[in-house]
């Protein structure tokens, strides 16, 4: 049964990814991107992982795709007609891409032909549950918060820098609107504000 689920999810994700880059309307493109993320998370659920696919759904669908949707709806992009460029670049791109994918599949089919241990779903030994009774999430947390905590902190700093950068890039001060500057009001005293006009 997980077998069929995997193939269903894989087919959905590949078809939806193709739709992402070929569909004309950007809103439809973002929605197909959401479908790609969801189906690839389902593909990873087949591997009996819990935390990583759920994080994929939360971060990719809940944050990134929603961000894309915001930008698409905010910018009022005209629906672009399919240009001739798409078909102009298809021969070279298709040739290079098909060569590359042929080479990759050739390498893959030669590299992983160990009979039993390559079966991921039904036949892999979950050492985590046999040796030490911790779940996937617990094991990941034990690793992430102890040995690799510095990378965790660096990831947080990366997110902070991205947030500050996005705010700095998009924030603009309107010079024509009178704003209330509280620090200027508070630093104003009678000595600096009241003075005699001399003529």
């Amino acid at each position, binding site marked *: 049964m997980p*077998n069929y689920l*995997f193939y269903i999810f*894989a087919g959905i*994700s*590949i078809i939806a*990814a193709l739709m*992402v*880059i070929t569909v004309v309307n*950007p809103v439809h*493109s*973002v929605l197909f991107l959401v479908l*790609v*993320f969801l189906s*690839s998370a389902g*593909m*990873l659920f087949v*591997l009996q*992982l819990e*935390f*990583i696919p759920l994080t994929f759904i939360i*971060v990719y669908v809940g944050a*990134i795709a929603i*961000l*894309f949707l915001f*930008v698409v709806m*905010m*910018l009022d*992009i005209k629906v*672009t007609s399919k240009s001739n*460029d*798409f078909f102009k*670049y298809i021969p070279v*791109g298709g040739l290079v*891409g098909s060569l590359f*994918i042929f080479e*990759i*599949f050739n390498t*893959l*089919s030669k590299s*992983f032909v160990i009979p039993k241990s*390559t*079966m*991921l*779903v039904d036949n892999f030994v979950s*050492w985590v549950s046999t040796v030490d009774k911790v779940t*996937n999430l617990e*094991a*990941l947390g034990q*690793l992430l918060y102890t040995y690799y905590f510095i*990378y965790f902190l660096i*990831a947080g700093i*990366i*997110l902070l820098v*991205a*947030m500050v*950068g*996005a*705010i700095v*890039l*998009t924030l603009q001060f309107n010079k024509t609107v009178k704003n209330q500057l509280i620090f200027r009001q508070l630093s104003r005293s009678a000595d600096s504000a009241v003075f005699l006009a001399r003529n």
Partner: protein
Amino acid sequence: MVYITTFLGVSTTLFLIGILGIVLNRKNILIILMSVELMLLAVNINFVVFSVYMDDLMGQMFALFILTVAAAESAIGLAILVAYYKVRNSIAVESIQMLRG
């Protein structure tokens, strides 16, 4: 039975679709950013599948960090897109080369 080669084939196909989206799409930057997201997703799937294959949690941790970088990258890219839209009032790729100086 799902072999690792099938998983790697699917993720490689997703990665190639992302590259094709960047190369073939000459109209708006939004599709290019989405293609970058697709490529990062394919790389993430690769890391997680190899993590299961090798019984090592390092791949899943690395997938978490890639997820962080993907979120940061899309935030910065979309912010640049919004700033560019304010200047040029369109997001066509062809006119970006006029944005000099």
